[in-house]
C-alpha cells in the first residue's frame, strides 16, 4: 500500500514480490506488476535461466520452472496444452510449470520459482 502524494488517499500498487532462484542457488527478488506473467517478470529484469524463445505463446517450453509444493497447489490450474508442452521441457517433474502461463496477481505475493539446470 502506498499513499498518493496529491490526494493523500491510499491506493494499491499492483505488484507482487516474486523470488526467482537460479539452478546454482542464486536468488533474485523482484517486484512484478500484476497482469504480467512470471516469465515476463524474469525477462524484464534480466534474470538468467528463463529463455522464453517463443515469447510466451506456449510453444517452446524454454520458460520452464519448478514451483514448491505449497505454492504449486495455490496457483491457478494449468490450462489445456501446458502439460503437453511441458513434456518437451528439460527434466520436467510433477511440480513443473511454464512461467509464461502463470499470471502475476496479489495472490502471488511471495511466490518462489526454481529454474531448471538449463532450458534446452
Amino acid at each position, binding site marked *: 500500500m502506498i499513499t498518493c502524494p496529491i490526494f493523500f488517499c491510499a491506493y494499491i500498487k499492483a505488484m507482487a514480490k516474486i523470488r526467482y532462484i537460479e539452478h546454482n542457488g542464486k536468488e533474485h527478488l523482484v517486484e512484478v506488476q500484476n497482469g504480467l506473467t512470471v516469465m515476463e517478470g524474469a525477462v524484464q529484469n534480466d534474470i538468467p535461466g528463463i529463455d522464453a*524463445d517463443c515469447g510466451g505463446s506456449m510453444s517452446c517450453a*524454454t520458460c520452464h520452472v519448478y514451483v514448491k509444493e505449497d505454492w504449486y497447489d495455490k496457483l491457478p490450474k494449468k490450462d489445456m496444452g501446458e*502439460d503437453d508442452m511441458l513434456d518437451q521441457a528439460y*527434466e520436467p517433474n510433477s511440480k513443473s510449470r511454464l512461467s509464461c502461463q502463470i499470471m502475476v496477481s496479489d495472490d502471488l505475493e511471495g511466490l518462489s520459482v526454481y529454474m531448471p539446470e538449463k532450458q*534446452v
Partner: protein
Amino acid sequence: MIKTDVVIIGAGPTGLFCAHQLGIIGLKCEIVDNLDKLGGQCIELYPDKPIYDIPAVPECTGEELTNNLIKQIKPFKFNFHLNDRVQELTNKDDNWIVTTTSGKKFQTPNVVIAGGVGSFEPRKFPTKSAEKFDGTSVLYSIKDKTIFKDKSVAIFGGGDSALDWAIELSNSSKVSLIHRRDEFRGAPASVKKIKELSKKSIINLFTKYSIKDVKGNGTLEEIEIKSEEGESKTIKADYVLGFFGLIMQLGPIADWGLNLDKKTIPVNTENFETNKKGIFAIGDICTYPGKLKLILSGFHEGALAARGCFKYARPNEKYRFEFTTASSTIKNRLGLK
C-alpha cells in the same frame, strides 16, 4: 558449387517474403532450411492457429499464410534446400562461401539470415551417457525402420511420433514405451491402441518414468528409468528413441563472427546489414531499437535487405525503384503479360 546472388538462411515467413522481394528486383536466390517444410514457426508451431495482424488479411492460419507466401514466389522458380542446415560461412574475396551440413556449397556476395530463433532441432535426452550413443543407438528420428527388426526398442515421449512409432515397431520389435505422466498428447485413437497393446503385453508401457541412465560397452545394452519418487527400473534395449518435439537452437549462427545480443543479431535499419559486409539479418533473429518480433516487421526488413543485396550483386548497376502495378519489367519477372 552453386553460384547465386543471395543465399537465404531460413524459410520462415520472413525468408520467403525476402525471396519475393529479391525476385521482384531481378536477383536470384537459394533458400536453405533445416526443417522438412517451408514456413518456419508458422508451419511448425501453429499451422492451425489464426493470425489477425497481417496487413490487409483480417484472418489467416499459419498454414494459409505459408501457402500464400509460397504461391507468391512461385513465378521466380527459386530452389529450396530443405532438411539441410547452414553450417559455415567463410569469406572469399568479395564473396561468401556457404556450406551446409549435407555438404552443399554456395558462392554468393550476399547472405540473408532469416533464422528466427534458430534452427528447429530435436530435443535430446538430458542424460550425459546418452551422448556417446547419439546417432548410433540413441536416435531422435527414424530413417530406416528395418534396423529395429527383432530388437528391443525403448521409445520415450507422449506425442504422436512416439505413439505411432511404438505401434508400428511393435509388429516386429520388442517395444517399451516410457512417458513422464499418465496422459498422452497423441491422437485418441493411438492412445487407445497403445493401451490395448499394453494389455496384451505386446508393448511394455511405463508411465510416470523418465530416463536415468544409458548403459553399454561400445554397444547399447540397457537403460535405467526412474520415477519421480526415485524408484528405478532397468530395461534391456538395443535402441533408444526420443520424441520430445523440436526446440529452436541458434546453433552454428553463433560461430560466424557476427555481433550477438543475447540470441539476436544487431543490424542497421537502413538495409539490415550486420557487422559483416554482405551478411544481412531479418525477422525474429535481428535486433535494433524498437524491434518487434512480428511477421509484418519481418516483411519490411526483408524488402529493405533485398535492396541492400542489390548493391553487391550488381555493383555496376544502379537500383531503380519501381511499382509492381506499373513496371513492365516486374510484370515480366512475374511471368505476366
